[in-house]
């Protein structure tokens, strides 16, 4: 393995980790407020479709992005109404959202474009193009760091950097603001928050909407940043991997960055090598791909630290009388 290989694997890691990271942070907001969300996949999918479809029609990726976010937030609202207002089962609502998204996107795509449930291929301004970070020139002379910065870190689309910036932003909102404190409290003990005279429903709705916003970014990145258009079921389980990453990160933003980068790295490695030769043993590709799930199970089983979900997670809040 040469240094060039390493750079290319890092480059690929960042591309693959970004949709996971955005979805993972989305789940983090929702679950920290006590609303479990297994509908991340579905929300990413509607966002991917609407961002690609609107970008294809208008020719502007930014209008597409807005449409994708709007669609994803609308789905969040459905989840919120079902599980917060009407106190339905959050898991069932999430599953319903996944099914609704899978069916609806294909149906509308076929009706609008008649291209076998695809949107037309996006070109030019209808896609996000790579941007170069400042300082690429200045660092180009530095050995190791220069090429690493220029090729692995720089040259991604803007949503990658938005995703990376969302990590400190999430940390700040959750742990340094009053809103964040209340949001975490509502996920642990909604009764106490209610007693303090703060609306539990409103806090949970805002968390769920933030979740929709971030899923919107993730879906839009898939369809207009990485690929050039929507194809049927294009999220391919990334929403579920993001959930695994969230558990792996024990519902914390910085850990989420770490776990998503790790999962992205494992995908990048398995894309690159059909078998991983570690000198002593050869690890088959399939095992590397399965590692995220195995690691998550190990964490959940409590072998390496303990993953404690927000205490009030999954339970609708009923006001005491």
């Amino acid at each position, binding site marked *: 393995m040469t240094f060039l290989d390493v750079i290319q694997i890092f480059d690929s890691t960042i591309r693959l980790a970004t949709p996971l990271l955005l979805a993972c942070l989305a789940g983090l907001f929702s679950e920290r407020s006590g609303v479990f969300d297994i509908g991340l996949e579905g929300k990413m999918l509607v966002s991917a479709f609407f961002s690609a479809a609107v970008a294809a029609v208008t020719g502007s990726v930014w209008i597409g992005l807005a449409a994708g976010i709007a669609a994803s937030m609308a789905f969040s609202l459905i989840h919120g109404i079902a599980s917060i207002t009407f106190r339905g089962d959050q898991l069932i609502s999430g599953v319903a959202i996944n099914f609704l998204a899978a069916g609806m996107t294909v149906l509308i795509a076929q009706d609008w474009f008649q291209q076998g449930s695809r949107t037309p291929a996006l070109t030019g301004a209808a896609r996000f193009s790579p941007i170069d970070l400042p300082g690429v020139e200045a660092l180009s002379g530095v050995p190791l760091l220069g090429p690493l910065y220029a090729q692995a870190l720089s040259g991604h689309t803007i949503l990658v950097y938005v995703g990376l910036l969302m990590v400190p932003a999430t940390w700040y909102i959750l742990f340094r603001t009053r809103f964040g404190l209340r949001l975490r409290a509502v996920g642990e003990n909604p009764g106490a928050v209610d007693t303090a005279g703060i609306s539990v429903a409103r806090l949970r709705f805002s968390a769920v909407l933030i979740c929709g916003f971030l899923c919107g970014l993730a879906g839009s990145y898939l369809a207009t940043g*990485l*690929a*050039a258009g929507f*194809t049927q079921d294009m999220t*391919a389980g990334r929403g579920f991997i993001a959930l695994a990453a969230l558990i792996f990160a024990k519902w914390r933003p910085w850990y989420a960055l770490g776990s998503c980068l790790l999962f992205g790295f494992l995908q990048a490695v398995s894309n690159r090598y059909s078998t991983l030769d570690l000198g002593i043993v050869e690890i088959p590709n399939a095992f590397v791909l399965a590692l995220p799930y195995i690691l998550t199970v190990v964490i959940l089983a409590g072998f390496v630290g303990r993953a404690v979900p927000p205490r009030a997670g999954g339970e609708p809040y009923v006001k005491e009388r």
Partner: protein
Amino acid sequence: MSLFRKMTSAAALTALSAGAALAEPGLIIDLGGKFDKSFNESAYTGAQRWVEETGGDYMETELASEAQREQTMRRMAERGADPVVVLGFANASTLETVAPDYPETTFVIIDSIVDEPNVQSVMFSEHEGSYLVGLMAAMASESGTVSFVGGMDVPLIRKFGCGYAQGARATSEDIEVIVNMTGTTPAAWNDPVKGGELVRSQIGQGSDVVFAAAGGTGVGVLQAAADEGIAAIGVDSNQNYLHPGTMLTSMVKRVDNAVYDAFEAAEAGNLQTGVQVKDLENQGVGYAMDQYNADMVTDEMIEAVEQAKDQIIAGEIDVHDYTEDDTCTAAGF
């Protein structure tokens, strides 16, 4: 009285239309839809060509879900369609139960073998077509490395990859062929993001021509190839128009010819049951040339490909078929 008259006339009409429908062929468009730019659309085009050339009529229905297969097949047979053409290997098990119930009707299944006396099974020699595009890929490559992205890791896709690798190796002994499969579940047919990522990884390893046999994932592969400026090869239908300037060619599978031939043979009354192989010789598979890739393909390539084609037809070159013994030394699996 008037009601009675209406009913008798309606009955007469039904009888008439049933009589007229007796010789009509039927086509069941599979999941994915009539205009999928690929398999189904190709079949539809073949049927349309038959209509244009013969002025005949045919029945057509489009499946909306997996559960409708049997019902649709039976209804088509009961309405008197003959032959009934079904598309894709997913129909095989259904056809095995339906075909014996309608011994008077001939069925045609594409891409799978159903062993019933009234079924024609159409198989394509994908390995031969892939061999030709592999040959072109190796000639077009400047880096000496070419690559293949498959969809779901199934024998049919390995058949493509195996033929491709053989074609590339026939051009030059020391060419590098990188083979990647997108996954092992049906999700691998619809993951353009991973497809794109696989190509970028292959480019990192030196590949400058990629062949995608991966359904919806292939869209991402061809797109990434266009973005990174390397040559790409499409599959099934002619996909050259997708990215003019980077599309080297497409390995076409003439499903349209299979449908056309079946319709025409049925009209002439000599539709053969049993296995029909569509290969290079009867133009069942081949490589696509049009105005979009004319600049990419040199005269030497055409010459070499045509020569190889003649040799395969004459039996001088034996392209190994992966599905025969489940091994392929050229592609390394």
